């Protein structure tokens, strides 16, 4: 009577499980090394989440103010506001009236009596109304500013009602910020790739070493006529178990780590609590971490053992 496929699968899995258990020290070492890889992958996940949140935050902090001359008509300004809102690059336009500008100015200089006194000397409110414009992307402020420059025709009595646009004063700062954001993205991506490649190599080599130790065993199996799949199977199973165990341990390890980092990141990176991010995205992170572990273990074993199967 011949053993069927199911029996073979059962034997391969059982042998793999036994090997994992009996080579306790080697298994522990491999699991730990693999955990390093998975922790790196995890940190990269968290890192990119932090980076993205802070970049979004930074982007939303960039805006331009269009200041109008004090005697500009409110209706004209609202007209400009409307036309700005119709631009595809613009995400939000806020109107700040002359009175609100004055309030804000007074508040900003509440400690400076001389300025407040000077302000009191004037009969009229010297400040103009302001339109605060936020673009969808910082790189689009240039075209928004240019558009406003072209809007001069709209002004009453052929006089420009726009006093100044602070984009031109902040241009260098905004350009710099755009550069930083782009660099951060590219750099983050490059570092991610480098780290993942490095840690993959380390894990792969560890699995290879454990198989190297079984080199002679593999030779013996060959000589008693075991087929390639039958020899390879248990090693791949062990690799999968390494990945599975390492993945689960990594996920558990992330609980205290993210909890501990959570408060810090929340204060530092404007509102992103790493711990709650971890909990909310747990299903995706689970799949990525455990999946990478299992894949890494299986592929490493599969590739590593091929070398010793040539007898």
């Amino acid at each position: 009577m011949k053993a069927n496929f199911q029996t073979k699968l059962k034997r391969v899995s059982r042998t793999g499980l036994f090997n994992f258990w009996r080579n306790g020290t080697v298994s522990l070492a491999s699991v730990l090394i693999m955990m390093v890889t998975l922790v790196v992958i995890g940190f990269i996940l968290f890192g990119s989440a932090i980076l993205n949140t802070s970049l979004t935050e930074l982007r939303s902090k960039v805006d331009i103010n269009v200041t109008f001359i004090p005697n500009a008509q409110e209706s004209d300004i609202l007209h400009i506001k409307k036309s700005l809102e119709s631009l595809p690059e613009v995400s939000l336009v806020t109107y700040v009236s002359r009175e609100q500008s004055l309030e804000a100015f007074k508040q900003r200089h509440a400690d400076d009596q001389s300025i407040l006194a000077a302000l009191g000397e004037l009969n009229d409110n010297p400040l103009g109304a302001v339109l605060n414009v936020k673009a969808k992307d910082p790189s689009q402020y240039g075209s928004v500013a240019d558009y406003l420059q072209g809007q001069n025709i709209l002004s009453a009595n052929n006089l420009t009602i726009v006093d100044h646009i602070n984009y031109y004063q902040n241009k260098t700062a905004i350009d710099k910020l755009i550069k930083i954001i782009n660099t951060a993205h590219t750099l983050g991506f490059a570092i991610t790739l480098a780290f993942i490649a490095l840690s993959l190599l380390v894990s792969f080599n560890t699995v290879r070493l454990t198989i190297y130790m079984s080199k002679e065993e593999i030779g013996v199996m060959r000589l008693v006529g075991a087929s390639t799949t039958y020899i390879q199977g248990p090693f791949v199973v062990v690799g999968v178990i390494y990945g599975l165990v390492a993945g689960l341990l990594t996920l558990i390890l992330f609980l205290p780590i993210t909890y501990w980092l959570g408060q810090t990141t929340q204060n530092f990176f404007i509102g992103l609590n790493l711990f709650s991010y971890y909990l909310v995205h747990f299903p995706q992170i689970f799949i990525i971490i455990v999946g990478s572990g299992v894949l890494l273990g299986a592929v490493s074993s599969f590739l590593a053992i091929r070398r010793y199967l040539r007898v």
Partner: protein
Amino acid sequence: MIFFDKVSKVYPDSSVALEDVTFSIEPKEFVSIVGQSGAGKTTLLKMFLAEEKPTKGRVFYESIDVHSLHKQDINKFRQRVGMIFQDFRLLPDRTVYENIAFTMEAAGRSDEEIEADVPHVLDLVGLADKVWNFPHELSGGEKQRVAIARAIVNNPDIIIADEPTGNLDPVNTHDIVQILKRINDLGTTVILTTHNKGVIDSLGKRVIAMDKGRIIRDDKEGKYFS
């Protein structure tokens, strides 16, 4: 049954392991191959098991050229040969039972057969009480018996024993040789390599003597010459 046809093996560093070796072995024969280390005994066995390819000549097993076999067929072929080594080569992480069961599993035998046959062969080699021990818990003689049990469990056509007594004391050597003799009496071809004079003299079977890769003597009822 086995036929070596003008087989030569030259390694890449141009050292000659075998030179123009021709001989045949009939079914149920007990053949000892003797010679000093480096005489080519182990190379000869490797040629037969298709572990290494000859530089010249061909090796036949029942009219099949073993070096023309495909990988899968080589596995099938090896399952018909039982191997015993000087250094035992048991799987260190598996119990005595599992070591023997592995060979049967590799041959695709069913669980029922394995459960029935493993205790049976262990009984044959006198190790019924060591079923659940690991190799490192056994003495040299015991390990070699496990190796013999492993070699015979699939009812092979041929047993190849490469210096099986090289690491054993005289008492165990005697026991192992007796077991091999019994296996041969039951109808299995046995090929034994050794440089133990006492073993050869006590057997009184065919002896092939080798030196520097050549066969220098082939006696029907040989004694050990050196």
